[in-house]
């Protein structure tokens, strides 16, 4: 059974920019669960490519401050202000910040689903990272 939607309008889309695939995919899944369309970018360069593609219809950008690319996250924010000032940019300086911002977006998201706690999201990312790091050491 699908969740009821808040509004009949087009699905809002979020561009998530995060160079850590583990946190990126967990946050992206979280936002999709809340009903958003999500575009994932691993670098600020990919983000600009995505933003230059009008068909992707991005409304909000959620960017980890540590995202890599030919320009830093603040450079991406500056680019957006210059080229697409109508877009909302949210920068987050930590995993906890990204999760909290995603939770805020979910509170006003298109689906009437209570978002799961951002702390659970952070814990899950940390578990995956720990498992990855252990595997890397062996």
């Amino acid at each position: 059974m699908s969740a009821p939607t808040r509004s009949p309008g087009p699905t809002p889309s979020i561009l998530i920019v995060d160079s850590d695939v583990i946190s990126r995919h967990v946050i992206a899944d979280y936002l999709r669960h809340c009903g958003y369309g999500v575009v994932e970018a691993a670098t600020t360069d990919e983000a600009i490519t995505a933003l230059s593609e009008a068909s992707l219809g991005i409304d909000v950008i959620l960017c980890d401050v540590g995202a890599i690319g030919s320009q830093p996250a603040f450079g991406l924010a500056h680019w957006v202000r210059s080229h697409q000032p109508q877009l909302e940019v949210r920068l987050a300086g930590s995993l906890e910040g990204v999760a909290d911002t995603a939770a805020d977006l979910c509170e006003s998201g298109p689906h009437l689903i209570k978002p799961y706690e951002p702390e659970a999201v952070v814990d899950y990312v940390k578990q995956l990272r720990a498992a990855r790091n252990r595997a890397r050491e062996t």
Partner: protein
Amino acid sequence: MHVVKEALDAADSRPARLLVVEDELLIRMLITDVLRDAGYEVIEAVSGDEALDLLKAGVVFDLVLSDVRMPGSTDGLALLAFARQNLAELPFILTSGHLAPEIALAEGAVGFLAKPYGMHDALAVVEQEVAKLR
């Protein structure tokens, strides 16, 4: 019983979880949209290195669709080799504009898509392989 089969047995009704590994953003957007619209759960990696990170973190997948030539230290063939050693039953479909299909299959891929591929063709190949898992 291998982890992939266990995951499927444990939750028969859940959608198959696919890992799509593709460095070209627009191709990745297109194929992941098609696969999600078809009902699959899709996790994206932009490189073989990212895909390796996900596999090493223990994220369970039912199938991998991976490009071969990608930036970083892990190309599609190296990713496939890692999976063959550590996740023997995880099926791989390779995509490439350069690699011969016979080589992909000889290396252990279960399917191959020559680039540029049509999205319907890609979906058909994925559906065919996922059906074998059920």
